[in-house]
């Protein structure tokens, strides 16, 4: 299999790629198989503003007295998971929640800085539910389902109400009303914020609601517990296999439904803005049990992060996008120029965004800014250690506004930068570089947020819906809370109304098989005792993904990546070194399991990127661009969701397309000239 694909690639290399590539033979059968189209069957038809109400009415209800007989497992306690568990507990269901950290409040939602969007139109500037819906669909480059996005905009209004009621300390005006600000490239002021820590405050609100339900006895919480397998019985998701990370005990937990709210998979790149523990294991295990994984190649790269300072770097830190409002981005004109930036005169500087995009300048969208930064660094003109960085210079702003004004706007960000790099942005230009930040792809879900696998629900960043090929700023927080507070609690009842389902015997073959699979895998990882650490494999995988499946993707690069990932995965299983035992806290063992799943995901991401021969949102194929170097969509062939089905180890994945129909918004090409 490897030989064939390498051979074919060698043949392809002789044909120079043009803007009109030959599609007849490239991806026909080498990496995947075509399966039947799929569709969402739950969204009602008719006027879009009535669909959610219609669905809530048509969904079967569960009598309050019957709810305590129904059990629901929720994995993950971020915005989506905590809000869902709390709300379902309040409704009277029996909920069992799990998280890998030591407390539900550690979930990575906590790190979000900017704000949360809602269509309140408090600023009286023309905002509305419809406009938020429109902006989100367009921002997603027309690769999201209209019904889901409209609903997101619709419930956004209720989210703010709920958060305020919980005591989230949003910023206020002097009159006591909520303050708003505008955000990245949008023309209305619809973002609610709590200084630079909106994610933290929203999460704490949901966490407190969750703790109240734990005290009330409706939610059982197990911290330091990691889900390692999904249990499927008679075609329904019925439970999970969990590892107690302190004792190493493997536990089986069964329920009437399973909810995954386990976040994104940016850590496949090793370096990202994700937390150290963020991983794809829960959703990947579900995928291997039959849940489709949609659009895995849709990853978002954020242009302003603090650059890598050395080989030992463990993660990347985000600097808020708002910095680009006043900073000017530049690199030296010549790659040979290694002078201190303060010594480089204007004539020797290349303000490349201002040069390439005269009308948007430094405020071009994230994907454009990121690619431009990568290009100048690839040309050898990058700055800082390793040459992977560009300058974000505030000298002009300080000269124009005064240091006090700049400090008032960006003080805390400047302090954070100084803390991490030891440099002073008031005196010397900041160094920034793009970094992986968010993943729009995830498990496929219908309008009810249910997977194609009955009984499995997926919320927040873990699912694929709503953001299409590119997520707008301040909308991730909105989606997590929409899914958890308002959507799931009104759709899961439709499924549970047929329950409680027949009790699953702890000795059921599906249960035993799942437990056995987990134990075998752990035993194997601990037995190899090879020569390389888990992190060394993770770093190498991350580099392959970043180089070939990052900001710019090519046919040749993706094929190379797939080959290399397969080799690396085999090397991992032959040569990884995990010390200690499984009956104790063993962080290397935890990481090993997650990295093992990242290999499989990485391969699927590259296949997905290879098959989607167009550029849209964060997915940029060099072969599909306009004469100006902008992303070129191919709406005729790719206006669909790519939902992948796992067909077995070593077998080609099966592609199911969900055609996207735009009834309300006209498809347009994005342009920034």
């Amino acid at each position, binding site marked *: 299999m490897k030989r064939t694909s390498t051979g074919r690639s060698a043949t392809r290399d002789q044909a120079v790629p043009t803007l009109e590539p030959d599609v007849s033979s490239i991806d026909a059968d080498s990496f995947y198989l075509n399966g039947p189209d799929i569709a969402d069957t739950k969204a009602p038809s008719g006027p879009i503003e009535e669909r959610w109400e219609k669905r809530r009415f048509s969904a079967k209800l569960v009598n309050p007295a019957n709810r305590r007989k129904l059990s629901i497992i929720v994995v993950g306690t971020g915005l989506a998971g905590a809000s869902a568990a*709390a*709300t379902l507990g*309040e409704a009277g269901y029996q909920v069992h929640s799990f998280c890998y*950290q*030591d*407390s539900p409040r*550690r*979930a*990575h939602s*906590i790190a979000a800085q900017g704000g949360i969007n809602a269509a309140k139109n408090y600023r009286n500037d023309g905002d509305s539910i419809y406009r938020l819906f429109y902006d989100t669909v367009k921002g997603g480059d027309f690769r999201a389902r209209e019904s889901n996005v409209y609903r997101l905009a619709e419930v956004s209004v209720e989210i703010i*109400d*709920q*958060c*305020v*009621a*919980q*005591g989230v*300390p*949003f*910023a*206020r005006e002097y*009159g*006591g*009303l*909520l303050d708003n600000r505008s955000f990245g490239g949008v023309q209305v002021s619809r973002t609610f914020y*709590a200084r630079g*820590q909106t994610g*933290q*405050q929203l999460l704490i609100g949901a966490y407190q*609601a969750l*703790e*109240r339900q*734990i*005290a*009330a*006895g409706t939610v059982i*919480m197990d*911290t330091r517990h990691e889900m390692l397998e999904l249990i499927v019985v008679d075609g329904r998701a019925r439970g999970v296999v969990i590892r107690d990370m302190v004792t190493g005990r493997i536990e089986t937990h069964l329920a009437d439904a399973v909810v995954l709210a386990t976040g994104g998979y940016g850590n496949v790149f090793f370096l990202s803005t994700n*937390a*150290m523990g963020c991983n794809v294991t829960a959703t990947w295990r579900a995928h291997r049990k039959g849940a489709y994984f949609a659009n895995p190649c849709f990853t978002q790269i954020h242009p302003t992060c603090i650059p890598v*300072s*050395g080989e*030992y770097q*463990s*993660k990347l*830190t*985000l600097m808020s996008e708002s910095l680009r409002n006043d900073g000017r981005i530049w690199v030296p004109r010549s790659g040979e120029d290694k002078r201190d930036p303060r010594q480089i005169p204007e004539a020797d500087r290349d303000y490349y965004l201002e040069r390439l995009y005269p009308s948007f300048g430094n405020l071009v969208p994230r994907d454009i800014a990121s690619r431009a930064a990568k290009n100048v660094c690839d040309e050898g003109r990058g700055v800082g250690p390793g040459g992977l960085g560009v300058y974000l210079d505030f000298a002009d702003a300080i000269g124009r506004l005064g240091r006090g004004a700049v400090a008032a706007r960006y003080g805390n960000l400047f302090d954070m930068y100084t*803390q*991490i*790099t*030891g440099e002073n942005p008031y005196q010397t230009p900041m160094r920034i570089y793009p970094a992986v930040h968010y993943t729009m792809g995830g498990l496929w879900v219908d309008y009810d947020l249910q997977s194609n696998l009955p009984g499995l629900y997926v919320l927040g960043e873990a699912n694929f819906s709503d953001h299409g090929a590119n997520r707008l700023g301040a909308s991730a927080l909105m989606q997590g809370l929409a899914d958890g*507070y*308002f959507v799931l609690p009104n759709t899961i009842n439709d499924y549970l109304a047929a329950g409680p389902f027949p009790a699953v015997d702890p000795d059921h073959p599906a249960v035993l098989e799942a437990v056995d699979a987990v134990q075998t895998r752990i035993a194997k990882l601990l037995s190899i005792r090879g020569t390389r650490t888990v*992190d060394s494999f993770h770093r190498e995988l991350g580099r392959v993904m970043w180089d070939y499946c990052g900001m710019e993707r090519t046919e040749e690069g993706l094929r190379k990546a797939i080959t290399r990932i397969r080799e690396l995965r085999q090397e991992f299983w032959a040569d990884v*070194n995990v*010390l200690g035992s499984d009956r*104790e*806290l063993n*962080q*290397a063992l935890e990481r090993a399991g997650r990295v093992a799943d990242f290999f499989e995901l990485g391969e699927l991401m590259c296949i997905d990127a290879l098959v989607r021969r167009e550029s849209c949102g964060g997915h940029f194929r060099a072969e599909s661009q306009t004469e100006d170097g902008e992303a070129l969509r191919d709406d005729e062939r790719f206006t669909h969701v790519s939902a992948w089905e796992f067909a077995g180890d070593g077998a080609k994945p099966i592609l199911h397309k969900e055609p996207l129909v735009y009834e309300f918004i006209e498809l347009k090409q994005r342009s920034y000239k």
Partner: protein
Amino acid sequence: MNITVRVWRQPNARAQGEMVAYPLRGVSEDMSFLEMLDVLNERLTTRGDDPVAFDSDCREGICGMCGLVINGVPHGPQQTTTCQLHMRSFKDGDVIDVEPWRAEPFPVIKDLVVDRSAFDRIIQAGGYISAPTGTAPDAHAMLVPKHRADKAFDAATCIGCGACVAACPNGSAMLFTAAKVTHLGLLPQGQPERFSRVLGMVAQHDDEGFGGCTNIGECTAVCPKNIPLETISRLNRDLLRALTHGGSHWPKAAPIREELEEEEPE
């Protein structure tokens, strides 16, 4: 730079534990403290020794998961979280002591990893506003004066790391408890439960085994979020008022304390 780290090693909760010295060469000053420990762990693993277990997650100073006592100071020489401490705060030849949070309510699990679930239980005892999903009025139905919103925010920034406990000679978690009492007690939404909250949370705090507060102030000096000591004054005032003017509702998680129950009004 070349340094020596002396690390607390304790294989499990029941084991004795001891400080073990590890020389480490070639440390870059741009490394974060935790990245330095990662490097130590890679080298230990390569030579077949058990790596050091320590907690971390976001590594950007906001989740509260990391927490090490470095040279006797929780979070080390800078007033930030451990993950934001960088090796440029140290110099060539330094010997650095690394220990877990030490407090009876924070039992050690392994090496530098401790159990802080006591904090979650204090929140369960009243650190919330009861607002079931769907019951909320319009966000603008309640005005919140800006200065109260700002003060509430300052208290709400607590990340629940536990440095306050680790620094306190009494092992008190008053700063953590007071931060939440202050945050919710300053907002109009928090008024209905203001008394039951402080009574429940303080009772839970005491039952967990945290010590009493004698206004020493070591806590705020190491707090990475600069939670002010004033929050403890507010908690004391609310507590006094609750005890003398009534606090009739006890949240389920808080064990009832007989002496306080007697003072409840009709």
